[in-house]
């Protein structure tokens, strides 16, 4: 093991060698890079369909952005509670860290609820996965596909965060759960980052 570590150090003297903690982080980053390609492909596909369609509805007029802007703000707030949870855990305050993790999960849960409300509203107005009253039927298809894929990520994130609350509770030493919470944070901020993109490309543009 030390042989490998020293070899690594010899190859890349500027980089710190991989530690068991950083493996988890590297693993999450690789997963997120793959996930980003997934979202990137969806958004690029959306762009291609929209650019080649003659009767694409103006998303801004059809979808409305007041609620979605509030949802964007909510996700940004939940990102802040996430980093604050990690900061307090680093200072050794497990209780405050757990409260902040809960607030983050709550933000995510409210986000998904608002999305369900928005979907219901739009479906009642005639936006379906295979057609809508405003123009190209692919508009509805791509809307539900992309926002649904993101909503599933948020749902998964809420479960992930609640699990992290348990991890922090069970490990008496705050430092023992720091790395796990930081990795969960990476996932959560990524979901926020993707929403920034989705909000811009599918609602504002």
């Amino acid at each position, binding site marked *: 093991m030390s042989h490998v570590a020293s070899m690594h150090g010899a190859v890349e003297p*500027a*980089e*710190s060698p991989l*530690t068991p*903690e*950083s493996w988890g*982080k*590297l693993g999450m*980053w*690789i997963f*997120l*890079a*793959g996930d*980003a*390609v997934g979202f*990137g*492909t969806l958004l*690029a596909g959306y*762009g*291609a369909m929209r*650019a*080649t*369609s*003659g*009767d694409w509805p103006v998303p*801004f007029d059809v979808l409305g*952005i007041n609620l979605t*802007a509030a949802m*964007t*703000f909510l996700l*940004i*707030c939940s*990102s*802040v509670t*996430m*980093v*604050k949870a*990690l*900061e307090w855990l*680093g200072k050794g305050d497990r209780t405050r860290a757990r409260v902040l993790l809960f607030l983050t999960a709550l933000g995510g849960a409210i986000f998904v609820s608002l999305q369900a409300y928005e979907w219901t509203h739009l479906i009642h107005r005639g936006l379906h996965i295979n057609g809508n009253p405003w123009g*190209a039927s692919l508009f509805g298809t791509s809307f539900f596909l992309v926002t649904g894929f993101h909503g599933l990520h948020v749902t998964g994130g809420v479960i992930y965060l609640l699990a992290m609350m348990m991890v922090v509770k069970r490990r008496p030493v705050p*430092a*023992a759960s*720091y*790395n796990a919470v*930081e990795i969960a*944070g*990476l996932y959560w*901020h*990524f979901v*926020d*980052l993707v929403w*920034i*993109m989705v*909000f*811009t*490309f599918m609602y*504002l*543009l």
Partner: protein
Amino acid sequence: MATAEHKHPNYMAIFWYLAILTVVEIGVIYLPIGKFTIGVLLCALALGKAVLVAMYFMHLKFETRTLGMVAVTPLVIATLLVFLLLPDGFAVVKRTVGVKAATTETAPAKH
């Protein structure tokens, strides 16, 4: 050391930057300028917000170069994808224009 703790940046400042950029984004769509300019502005603002989140909330600024390279990879792939899709887009537009010219607006082309 078990927890390689880096310094925590001023998260509230990043929060305000993100909030202000979101308000600016919504303001931009009402500007009385060309649609293309609005599109470019929106893309730039979204990219700026994404960079803020990745750099400070995801701590990329304080990480090793290896993680940075992993993070940049999808961006490179996405850029390639856009260029891969461009010819297709233009081909369809050209075909649609051709059809429209041939029918000379007797029957509206249905997509």
